[in-house]
């Protein structure tokens, strides 16, 4: 797994962004950018420098599921792996995310081990 990949973390709670960022740092990923909802995430994604997207679902402005759909519908962005980290835990929601093309789904609250596992699993499948 390349450690210098650029990761975008999207969550409206700064607490959660910081937690994920710190856990990523522990895993050796230090190239992390942040956005607080889908709307602010999109311009960053469109700059074309993001290799991996971690997003929450429930956010004002633009939700994570809409962001995921937008990413998958954009030929420039559709290749980016997306990990959903969210408190949304209804079966229909998880199925909807899977159908929209999510690469992994972690429900909050999560442990460092689970987040690490899911990220590694996504990279295994990609490479």
């Amino acid at each position, binding site marked *: 797994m390349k450690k210098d990949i650029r990761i975008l973390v999207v*969550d409206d*709670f*700064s*607490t*959660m962004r*910081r*937690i994920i960022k*710190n*856990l990523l740092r*522990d895993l050796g990923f230090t190239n992390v950018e942040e956005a607080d909802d889908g709307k602010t995430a999109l311009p960053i994604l469109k700059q074309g420098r993001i290799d991996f997207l971690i997003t929450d*679902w*429930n*956010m*004002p402005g633009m*939700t994570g599921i809409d962001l995921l759909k937008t990413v998958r519908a954009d030929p420039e962005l559709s290749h980016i792996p997306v990990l959903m980290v969210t*408190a*949304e*835990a*209804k*079966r*229909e*929601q*998880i*199925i909807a995310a*899977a159908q929209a093309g999510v690469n992994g*789904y*972690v*429900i*909050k*609250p*999560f*442990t*460092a081990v*689970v987040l690490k596992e899911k990220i590694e699993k996504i990279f295994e499948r990609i490479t």
Partner: protein
Amino acid sequence: MKNKIATLEYEGLEDLLGQMARELVETIDKGNLSHAMELINDLQQARHQVFYNEVGHLTRGLHEAIKAFSSDLDEKILSDNGSSLTAMTDASERLGYVIELTEKTSHETMDRVDRSLTLVDRLDGQSERFKDLLLLVGQLEGEFKALDGVYDRTCAVKNESEKTIEELRSTLTDILVSQSVQDITGQLIRRVITLMTQVESQLVKLMDMAAKVERLTGIEMGEQSSESTEKDAIRAQGPQLKKKEAGAVSDQDDVDELLSSLGF
């Protein structure tokens, strides 16, 4: 009779209906049909009136309860926190303040965790330097009989301390991750804020309606709330409370199972 109906409450309804029904039967027996029709009208009006009166009472009670809750909270917050919160007269704002406060303290906790992790890194560095010194002891051990066994014993201490450092690091990470509760509670509070805003606006509508029938009910309404501002509703569902009942999965294992059944 008319007078009785105007102030009629649910408790008195049965008695009044019985009384009116008997009067109706008597009137019909006497053949006074026009008075009988009047009585039927009164009966119908009594039913509506009870409904209006009850709504009036309910609305006023709700309004009073909310006012009392507000002033009660104001006093408590004021006594705890000085006068900085005098402007927070709105319950939704108070809840917003809770989110803000927990966010701030979460970050403060994480600042300390970060600082502690830096200290752990420093311990790690010291352990490396210790290893160099230890090698020196190992070399000297052969030359000085008194040093016999010191190398091994010191090595054991060093290994133990490295394990402790590792444990410390993972505990600090746990503290970091546990701050995610701020996100979860924040989302739940936002849902309550949305609900409260909706209830408030419905309440104002209800009071408007009640005021319109005031003429009929004769109930004095309290002052109407002017706080009818509708705030943007926050969409999505938020954290699940009654997981199994709500058709939600309960933990990460369930999510994984569901995803793998979908071919993931």
